[in-house]
């Protein structure tokens, strides 16, 4: 038989590839992987920014709004009397509102009465990005941040309809008329575009190794932790390893990157 060595090697290569691929598939089907709630996808640089919120610490300071104030001040988020026109990047939500499937009436009153900071989850599989008709909102390949391009947004509000967390706000009128004070270092928005939390990309750009978002910086009680999910030694991974955490609406498969210590 004149089967050349090269051909044989080729065949073996194909076999090996199939074997490896098949094994990976098998692992997914067989084990915990199948039901594991969305393992985070690889980014191009193994970098995945994430946040951990300690709801216990937040509950201890129920009246604290430092993170909200700092964020909204840093990003020129306007303040509206009319709740219909409200714009918010981060706010305190009731426990039942934040975790509609994770509460019941017999829960301890303390847990049920917690209000937790909620913000854009920077989903691993973001529905807002999927529905945007112009690519104005997109997920950054290198670190998974879900970003808004205000220059491209046409204001169709499909992303608002698509976001399961209510994280997006629309500029119904000119926001500049509703800014108590202006941070000259950050742009405002114009009427007719959608906005949301960006995980402080402007701070990530200045300090890519160890960025600290405005909300995290403002928290006096260490209730907010920010870091790289891809790094086992990062503060977020250490926080996640030690205690039980929830994510918001994990059943939808969006893979939120904001975790809540309970």
């Amino acid at each position, binding site marked *: 038989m004149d089967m050349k060595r090269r051909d044989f090697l080729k065949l073996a290569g194909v076999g090996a590839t199939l074997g490896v691929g098949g094994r990976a598939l098998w692992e997914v089907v067989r084990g915990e992987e199948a039901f594991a709630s969305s393992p985070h996808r690889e980014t191009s640089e193994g970098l995945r920014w994430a946040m951990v919120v300690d709801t216990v610490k937040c509950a201890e300071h129920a009246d604290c709004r430092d993170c909200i104030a700092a964020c909204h001040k840093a990003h020129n988020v306007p303040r509206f009397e009319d*709740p*219909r*026109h*409200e*714009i918010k990047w981060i706010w305190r*939500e*009731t426990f*039942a*509102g*934040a975790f*509609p499937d994770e509460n019941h009436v017999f829960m301890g009153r303390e847990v049920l009465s917690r209000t937790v900071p*909620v913000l854009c989850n920077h989903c691993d599989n973001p*529905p807002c*990005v*999927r*529905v*945007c*008709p*112009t*690519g*104005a909102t997109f997920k950054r390949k290198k670190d998974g941040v879900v970003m808004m391009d205000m220059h*491209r*947004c*046409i*204001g*169709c*509000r*499909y992303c*608002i*309809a*698509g*976001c*399961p*967390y*209510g994280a997006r*706000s*629309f*500029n*119904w*009128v*000119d926001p500049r008329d509703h800014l108590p004070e202006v941070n000259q270092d950050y742009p405002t928005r114009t*009427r*007719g*575009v*959608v906005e949301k939390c960006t995980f402080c990309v402007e701070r990530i750009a200045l300090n890519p190794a160890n960025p600290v978002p405005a909300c995290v910086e403002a928290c006096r009680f260490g209730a907010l932790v920010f870091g790289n999910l891809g790094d086992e030694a990062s503060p977020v991974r250490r926080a996640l390893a030690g205690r039980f955490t929830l994510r918001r609406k994990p059943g*939808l*498969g*969006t893979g939120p990157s904001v975790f809540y210590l309970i």
Partner: protein
Amino acid sequence: MLEKALQGGRRYWTWLAAVGAVILVGFVAWLWQVRVGLGVTGLSRDVSWGLYIAQFTFLVGVAASAVMVVLPYYLHNYKVFGRVTILGEFLAISAVILCMLFIFVDMGQPRRVLNVALHPTPNSVMFWDMVSLGGYLLLNVLITRVTLDAERKEVAPPGWIKPIIILSIPWAISIHTVTAFLYSGLAARPFWLTAILAPRFLASAFSAGPAILILLCLFVRRVSRFDPGLEAVRKLAVIVAYAMAVNCFFVLLEMFTALYSDIPHHVEHFRYLYVGLGEAKALVPWAWTSAVLSAAALVLLLVPGLRNNLKVLPWTCVVVVFGLWIDKGIDLIVAGFVPNQVGHVTEYAPTLPEVLITLGVYGIGLFVLTVLYKVGLAVKEAEAA
């Protein structure tokens, strides 16, 4: 051919002037909206789509319904519809233009409308909606232009138009399917997250659309020397009856799945619609009106004596259209946002500028429809004479 629209009697010009006035008022209101922002509407952070997008949804159905006369005539050679196809296609053209305008007035940054084409995003259903609506408009403009021109010259239409007409049939189905996909693919909104939304949309479209066409046919019989034929009208009524029955069936299917499974996130929206959530009951009267009208329409359509009675039929059609308009043009969109993603209840009511803009857009549709029908009827009348 369009010059035929310039010859008309006093009633014609008065009508156009009246519609023009409505358009003008709407246009001024729209300029105000562009200046101030969409804050002039009743929309909010929680209910971020309302009257405009709901009208768009309803009218995509009207546009798609032309297929109900085109298909029998061209695929099955059902001659009776030969006289009404052009009326159906002109209705489709007007409706598609209305759809596009309603999307346009809903945009926060109308100047950037071309971004959808400049940065094509195939993963967005809205991109495909633009493709399908634009294509459908082109198809129908081409088809009506060529067939009517042939009719005027009293020759057979050229052979190459036939495949294009055939293409317009699945294309009509596609526009409403894609429009349903806008909603039914959103995990965030359990009310819309249902596979039956597209077929339900088509059923209600094939009921409301032909019902409007019947009204137009009866109107045309009155005001012109062209008679679309009573047999065609009666056949259309049969189509309306079937589609209405299927639509009601689909709505009940949807309710069964939501209510029997009793999954709270699905039930809450139906509760808001039919009994209200606490103090929030804005849609309850609308929802029940729609339900009663639909039930009444079913009786009026299914009893042959009533359906074939030309004195009753126009009223039946009004009942059908109004019932389905409430369902799609108000309830379906708004109820999807109440309660919102975190369980809060914010109600929605359109404001005066919003209503004026809506009426103005409808005015443009009526204007286009009037001009197109004027041209079409002029050709038909010349042929009959």
